[in-house]
């Protein structure tokens, strides 16, 4: 599944889960410069639910932040919590399927299994009348996803550090 560096992909450089947002900084590799506008699209796994944000580019570098509340699903939580998969999408491909989009991930270094090594803290989010923990993570294929699980009702609303 590791994307060979010749096919276009969106490579993560840094993830900053703090101050109420999940900020992702990275680089678009081999994607060409043709389309003027790119978007970050978060897909709620196994559903048609999408979140869309402008993906400002400076050279090949993108820097985007999503408020944690946005990851709390409006239609209730699937079993095991909500998992959002993150994609970079040029404007002219927004109407196409996910197979035409660039999955955001981290593939260009020597750390093979990031899931257990590059680990990020969870933040508390409150939306839709529920409290939830929002945490970015790498999948076993080193792609970037965001996990959102309801917090136990007795937990404090304090943000994790």
């Amino acid at each position, binding site marked *: 599944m590791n994307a060979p560096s010749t096919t276009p992909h969106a490579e993560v450089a*840094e*993830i*900053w*889960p*703090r101050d109420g947002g999940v900020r992702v900084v990275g680089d678009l590799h081999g994607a060409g410069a043709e389309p003027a506008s790119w978007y970050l699209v978060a897909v709620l796994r196994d559903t048609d639910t999408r979140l869309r944000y402008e993906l400002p580019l400076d050279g090949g570098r993108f820097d985007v932040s999503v408020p944690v509340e946005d990851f709390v699903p409006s239609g209730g939580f699937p079993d095991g919590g909500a998992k959002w998969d993150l994609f970079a999408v040029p404007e002219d491909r927004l109407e196409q399927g996910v197979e035409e989009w660039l999955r955001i991930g981290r593939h260009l270094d*020597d*750390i093979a299994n990031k899931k*257990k*090594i*590059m*680990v*990020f*803290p969870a933040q508390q989010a409150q939306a839709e009348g529920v409290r939830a923990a929002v945490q970015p993570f790498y999948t076993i294929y080193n792609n970037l996803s965001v996990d959102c699980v309801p917090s136990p009702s007795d937990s404090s609303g304090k943000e*994790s*550090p």
Partner: protein
Amino acid sequence: MRIRYLLLNAYGTGGTIRTVFTQAKTMAGLGHEVEIVSVIRHRDDPNFDLDERVKLSAIVDQRPAKADAPRLGPVARYRAWESERLKKLGPSVIPTGEFAADAFNRYVEREIIRYLKGVHDGVLVTTRPGLNILAARYADPQLIRVAQEHMNLATHRKDVRRAIRKHYPRFDAVAVLTNRDRQDYEELLPGTRVVRIPNAVHSMEQEPSDHTSKIALAAGRLSPQKGFDMLIPAYKKVAERHPDWQLRIFGTGKKRAELRALIDEHHLYNHVFLMGHTDDMDGELAKSSFYILSSRFEGLPMVVIEAMTHALPVVSFDCPTGPADVITDGKDGILVPPKDVDALAEAISKMMDDQELRSSMGAEALKTAQSYAPEHVHVMWEELFTDLANNASKGAPAKS
């Protein structure tokens, strides 16, 4: 010559076990009859490769009983009941300040003493204070007895140091790792032969670092001893100046969750990685640009010397003991005062600033590592054992 090494647990991981396996292999290669005796055994196979000429046995087998084990008779049942009772009691001989005191319950202690009383020939090498104290008190005085210190005297608690002073004079030799520790032991044990024999690196034929990667490496058990709880806050200051670098900490241990929380607290999750265990430490060392030791105390930190065999310079706390024995400040690495987090951060930044410095110090580090080459160190053991056998005319067949 018959040489027995007594280890607390040959089936665990750690520098002592690895070192003893290497020594045993060398001694077997020189034609000696070598056995490693593990006090406890909790798994089928050891974690490190053991030379096939070296015999491995255990005193207390803690592996779960097999389902098809025969039913016990009344006497065996009584013995089992008695053993269970003893296992709940603390040791009676070994001081409670022994860092491994938990492993030495009354039952384990009794079994070690039984074993020691049944050995009557050759060299007996014991490898940690608890075992040394038992060997001094209970092993046959006709044996050539050698106590190994794999940590250092100053690190031991008061009750352990008292027991060392009382019992170690019965040893034919006490072997320590560093010059500083030899001085300490000679002061405590006037008249006892104290020798300094460092541990050997496993190979001098290593791939050198080219010092271009932006990776700093640290490794060790995730425990308070290794001081990663000081390294992470130090790295906070470093990451602000060198955001393109990363720190990789290899190892597993009980403090993992706490260190993880510390990384999160300092927002270092993009720069500091808890890498877990690796089967290829040599490869990881070769990929990095320098090594960091943040320990509170050490014996002789072998991983530092292993790093030097890859031409890596070292930034280290000048903790007791080891770093100052190995590293010459400003030549093959940078030594900073122990537990001085700001000085550690400063030294790490200095190393990151200057590839030329890393390369020149790395070349010196490679030279330093030469004196820990296996062929250099193992001669020292061979000479010690031969000398003890000749002088004492005991243990090995005496030369007439």
